């Protein structure tokens, strides 16, 4: 279990005063108009292990399954792009209210911080692509206009967006004294997927401290995957999903650029799953048709150190969709498939500039390998979110099973994807 938080350092009263409106009806409350039906409600902690941590989890590549032709960066993660940091806060709690009704919290927040965490001083070129808009990513109206990313990127559960946005504003205010005098005030980028299959999402248990903890804990290097951070309550392809990441580093003769992708995956159904073209989902359905429902949305973030402009990053964002398609997902009506791509290759002063500045641009002729690298990294990131996730039990006894790795390997062998590898 990763970063599961205990209740000790945690004040219930303060948390619930913020959420006093959405808890269940009180006795006799129906006599009051709805806006007066306020109630403090106490929840108590119940101990239990919602995650079966025994089963070993591996990244796709560690299983011998290799996607595409380009090599990953050192960590095979979005953090291979210089200066990009990732932090998670995972909230896994078993609670019960006064009447004994259990409340299962499986949520959290993941933050992506460019520029070695120093996000507000310099802005980065960025682009957004709306593959299927049944989702939320705040801050996009101005981002699309300005073509620049000005804040950290937060990934969380659907109903946490307001609270995470608010915490993001707190962080902005803390880091940027004098922000009120700025010509344009940055709008935080907060994206969501619906974690309601595993989590009692109405409780909205996330706090400002949780968000700030994710920011404080953000770092480069290897990235925790699966049911962590914003991905804690997510299910994907009928299995436990969540956070996944991957990267590609092009050789020097192809420009030596790196592209990294991080996803919060909560989309598609089991029978759709394809791994490197193999219909793994269909094969697995023969073995077990009991798949968790309620899956919707995937947020995909691509980062590159190639000095791309916004319009080129938009093309990268569209290639991210192609990677998504290769995993078999088809963007269901209720799947908010939103893509944000940014480049660390040019850094623009947040406080503006009174003289022209030099911008580096990539020769269009050389971008093609980067597109393929993006497709590959996206596919692998989504699959990593599956293979790294542990089985999780949540709301109302719902279980999201981890994808069985032995069976995955077995199927891939049957389709000759693991030939030449020692049989173990």
């Amino acid at each position: 279990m990763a970063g599961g938080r205990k209740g000790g350092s945690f004040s219930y009263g303060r948390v619930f005063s913020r959420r006093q409106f959405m808890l269940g009806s009180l006795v006799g409350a129906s006599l009051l108009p709805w806006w007066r039906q306020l109630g403090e409600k106490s929840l108590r902690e119940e101990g239990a292990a919602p995650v079966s941590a025994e089963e070993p989890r591996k990244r796709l590549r560690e299983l011998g399954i290799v996607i595409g032709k380009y090599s990953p960066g050192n960590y095979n993660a979005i953090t291979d792009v210089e200066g990009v940091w990732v932090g998670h806060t995972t909230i896994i709690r078993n609670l019960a209210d006064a009447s004994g009704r259990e409340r299962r919290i499986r949520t959290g927040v993941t933050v992506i911080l460019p520029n070695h965490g120093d996000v507000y001083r310099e802005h980065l070129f960025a682009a957004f692509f709306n593959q299927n808009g049944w989702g939320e990513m705040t801050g996009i109206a101005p981002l699309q206009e300005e073509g620049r990313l000005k804040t950290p990127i937060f990934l969380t559960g659907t109903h946490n967006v307001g609270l995470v946005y608010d915490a993001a504003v707190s962080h902005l205010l803390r880091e940027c004294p004098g922000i009120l005098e700025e010509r344009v005030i940055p709008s935080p980028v907060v994206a969501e997927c619906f974690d309601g299959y595993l989590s009692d999402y109405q409780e909205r248990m996330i706090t400002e401290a949780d968000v700030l903890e994710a920011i404080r804990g953000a770092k480069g290097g290897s990235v925790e995957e699966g049911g962590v951070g914003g991905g804690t309550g997510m299910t994907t392809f009928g299995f436990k999903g969540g956070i996944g990441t991957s990267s590609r580093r092009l050789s020097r003769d192809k420009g030596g650029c790196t592209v990294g992708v991080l996803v919060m995956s909560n989309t598609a159904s089991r029978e759709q799953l394809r791994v490197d073209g193999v219909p793994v989902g269909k094969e697995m359905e023969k073995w077990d048709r009991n798949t968790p429902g309620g899956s919707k949305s995937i947020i995909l973030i691509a980062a590159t150190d190639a000095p791309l402009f916004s319009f080129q990053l938009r093309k990268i964002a569209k290639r991210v969709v192609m990677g998504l398609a290769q995993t078999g997902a088809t963007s269901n009506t209720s799947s908010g498939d939103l893509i944000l791509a940014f480049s660390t290759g040019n850094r623009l002063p947040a406080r503006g500039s009174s003289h022209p500045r030099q911008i580096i641009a990539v020769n269009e002729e050389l971008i093609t390998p980067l597109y393929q690298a993006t497709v590959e990294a996206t596919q692998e990131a989504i699959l990593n979110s599956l293979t790294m996730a542990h089985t999780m039990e949540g709301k109302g006894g719902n279980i999201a099973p981890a994808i069985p790795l032995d069976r995955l390997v077995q199927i891939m062998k049957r389709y000759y994807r693991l030939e030449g590898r020692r049989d173990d």
Partner: protein
Amino acid sequence: MTERKRLRDWGLKFGAYPTGPLNAITDVSGVKVGHFSMIKEESSFSGTPKCIRTGITAIVPYSLPLERRLLVGSFVMRPGGDVTGYEVIDDFSYLKSPIVLTNTFSAGRIYNGILSIGFRLKRDLWPPIVIGLDDSYLNDMDARTLQEEHLIEVVETASSGRVAEGAVGAGVGLVSYGWKGGIGTSSRQVPLLAEVCHLGVLVATCNLHSPSTVLEEGEKGEDDGELSPSLEVDKAGTLAIVLATDAPLLPYQLKGLARESALGQAGFVSPHDGIISLAFSATNVIDNAEEGPLTYRFQWIEEKNLSPLLSAGKEVVKEAVANSLLMATPVEGRMDREGVPIPPELLKQRFFEQGLWKKPPF
């Protein structure tokens, strides 16, 4: 202070179409508007009291216990602020949530408050639509004193009657064109085939710059006298426009209405400023979609019949902008700044210069 009256109460007829009974967005049946204004000094850790000049304005597009989806279209250009729920508006053209205007830094809490209202009503109001406006010229926006209960009060007290304008709700801390800005509203009755439909708008004028001041920057202060703008704001402006109509428009037509109404404001928006424009139809709606049938029936009106509505869109926004300035009352804000209401003569003069009146108004 000069008397504050709406544009029409100065005896000026404006535009080609008659207004609705209230000359407000609430002339579109089912649409309600609520304001919450917060004007206070609040002590802070640093010792200097925070000067709170802010609020919430909510447009409730349908009677809330209903499980209803409205069709909506948007046009966004150089926005100085954020609009949440934008992906759904842009890609699905659905509107379920109230449209709430507030200051940028409170957008998260207000977003969360809309979710709370949804939980309480057991209705899916997702995605919440919150338009964040930068009122920090007068307001200590970093104090973030607005809370969920204030939003709930706004939505609960929203009414389909007269709409307060000027320095009220989200407009308390807004300035525009060098004067006090705020909330403005107006409406039109427009012929549509054999019937008459209503078109209403509510605007917020946030940090807008007068295009003519921009042009005349080099020669400022020569003979403007007391008609020169009272303050200079170095901020990206936003004209927030929310249009409501009972005409049965489809999403692409609503997008057209949002766009035409926004682009019709050439004389009101400088290159420093942006526009966030939303338009929704209160009649082409979907009820109880989750257990709905396979297909729905909507009404479609051919575009050539919509041109009166589109030109009404241009004039109704202009009148609402004028009302937001004319109805504004003085507000003293942070750092001893003062939002001074525009002298009505100046506004009339500007309208005259732009050919909006045939003869000089005074």
